[in-house]
């Protein structure tokens, strides 16, 4: 038995990785720009939001790495789920996530998003965020220090640069699964059904 984190690679991701081998030069360039520029939605969903101000202001200055805040979900690339997530917050996170433009990513901070954390027996918080939304990167800690958050962002940037992340695609493909889980905790009134092709039949282009 090894020490440290017990890695259990998931088989379901392996087919995504194989696609990167034949990506075009435009995709390569686009991934590079996406990696260099990350807009983070300014929405503190839990206690970990307190670690975000030092990350983005002059002490750790995430703007060095091209990471800056975005005021509206329309312009954001990343939503940070910072810690525990009550049902009430989850409803807002889902609606916000669905308003963001593809490609979009989720960064989950802290223990609570993984397996409930210290709210593991609470009647009003969800235990596993990945049941409801596709999470791209988990950061360890309770709460993670700004260095950890930056480390998470850098890992995310690396994955974006390699073109390996397509969690929004996963969300669209497995929407029935996510919707079922969302309705299980939030009831039928979760949100209008999310559809990736909204803009095609809503009088759009």
């Amino acid at each position, binding site marked *: 038995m090894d020490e440290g984190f*017990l890695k259990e690679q998931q088989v379901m991701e392996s087919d995504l990785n194989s696609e990167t081998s034949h990506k075009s030069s435009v995709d390569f360039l686009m991934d590079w720009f996406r990696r260099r520029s990350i807009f983070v939605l300014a929405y503190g969903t839990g206690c970990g939001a307190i670690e975000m101000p030092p990350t983005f202001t002059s002490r*750790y200055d995430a703007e060095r790495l091209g990471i800056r805040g975005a005021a509206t979900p329309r312009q954001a690339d990343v939503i940070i789920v910072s810690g525990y997530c009550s049902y009430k917050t989850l409803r807002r996170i889902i609606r916000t996530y669905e308003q963001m433009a593809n490609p979009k990513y989720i960064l989950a901070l802290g223990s609570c998003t993984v397996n409930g954390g210290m709210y593991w027996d609470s009647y009003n918080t969800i235990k596993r965020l990945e049941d409801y939304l596709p999470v791209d990167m988990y950061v360890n800690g309770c709460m993670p220090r700004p260095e950890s958050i930056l480390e998470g962002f850098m890992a995310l940037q690396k994955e974006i640069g390699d073109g390996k992340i397509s969690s929004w695609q996963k969300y669209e493909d497995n929407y029935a699964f996510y919707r079922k889980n969302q309705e299980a905790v939030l009831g039928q009134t979760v949100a209008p059904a999310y559809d990736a092709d909204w803009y095609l039949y809503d009088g759009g282009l």
Partner: protein
Amino acid sequence: MKWSIDISGTLSPLGILAAMMQKPNTIAYPAVKKETAVGYRGFHTNLLVDCIGCANCQDVCMNDAIDMIKTDKEYNVKNSSQCIPRIDYGRCCWCSLCTDVCPPDSLKLDEEYLGVTQYASDFLYMPKDK
């Protein structure tokens, strides 16, 4: 809308221009590393020579984060259950109660704390033997 001319209020912000000449406050993280504060509660370590497998840590953990599992490594001869703790970092809140109740003081918190992964199932942690 009422307003009046405020000379000092207009001039005093000009002092900010001096900040241009000063050194930035920023810790440029990946290049410059900040030293971990003394007593910072990072990852767990467990000295197997001392661990007696008493499960006090498991009993005291309010988050139900600790599993006692059979080890295949060399353990303390006094380890009467032949079990050592494994910690679920999807539950742990680094309250440090487990290290406080550890009778032989083998379970400790290290200074390392950086852990980033794509998969939530990676968050089971086997304390390092040191």
